[in-house]
């Protein structure tokens, strides 16, 4: 069961609106390496995990990703709240405004609606963990791109926090992968190879 806590994980306090930047950062809301996909990836993969460490870790990181989704949504909202059509037009972001107005929509920066196509959920625990390690790196790289595009210190403060969390998750997933591999190796002590159904 999920319970909502009425607080952001890290404060988002942005003084100036910037529609162009909003329509770029939206990609971490509903884009291919975004937080919605991350939450769905981990919360879906956890069902078949064989050990309590990965079940717990995927539950906890998947839940944190929902908190990050809320943070990214807050950034986009504060960057666009109160802006007019002409503000978007001036910044060459009329396309986002045409579909969504000044609001927060789960889509990529290029306008593709959210899709689970970038979320791999396989029945193989190790494959899932490799997917998760890659996903954290990809999300970190996108936050790096955003930091290159943004010169707003208020935005960058929150983005740097989110970027740092990707690195922590990568670290924890790496540890979980090692633990699980050790456990599986232990089971395979007779060297019989792949376990059949």
């Amino acid at each position: 069961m999920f319970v909502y806590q009425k607080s952001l994980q890290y404060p988002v306090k942005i003084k100036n609106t910037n529609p162009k930047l909003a329509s770029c950062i939206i990609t971490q809301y509903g884009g291919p390496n975004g937080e919605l996909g991350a939450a769905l990836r981990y919360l879906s993969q956890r069902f078949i995990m064989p050990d309590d460490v990965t079940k717990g870790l995927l539950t906890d990181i998947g839940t944190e990703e929902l908190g990050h989704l809320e943070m990214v949504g807050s950034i986009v909202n504060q960057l666009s709240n109160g802006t007019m059509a002409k503000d978007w037009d001036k910044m060459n972001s009329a396309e986002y405004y045409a579909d969504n107005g000044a609001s927060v929509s789960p889509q990529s920066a290029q306008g593709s609606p959210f899709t689970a196509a970038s979320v791999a959920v396989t029945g193989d625990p190790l494959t899932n963990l490799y997917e998760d390690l890659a996903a954290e790196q990809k999300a970190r790289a996108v936050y790096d791109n955003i930091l290159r595009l943004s010169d707003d210190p208020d935005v960058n403060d929150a983005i740097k926090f989110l970027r740092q969390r990707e690195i922590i998750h990568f670290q924890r997933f790496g540890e979980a992968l090692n633990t699980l591999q050790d456990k599986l190796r232990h089971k395979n002590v007779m060297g019989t190879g792949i376990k059949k159904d």
Partner: protein
Amino acid sequence: MDANSNLVQGTNIAEDKAALMNKLQSYSFAAFDMQLYLDTHPYDKKAFEMFKSLVEKCREIAAQYEKRFGPLTAFASANFELYRWLEGPWPWEKEANK
């Protein structure tokens, strides 16, 4: 105590756990449903009183459950000597839904 009485006691513990969880689910659901009602009727005093007593009951049952069977939230594992958050079964498993 012989092996047989151990078995009987073991069954009772599992039954207690399932019964307490069932009670927690029932009261939590009732409280949550009242929450939705209050979202659209925030000044309904009678509903708010009922919400208060349901939440109180939830807290009571959750405390009972956690004391006997371990933490329901990760932060609640701070109330134990060991970090028991990772103990299975997990809610999506059959073993947790008896």
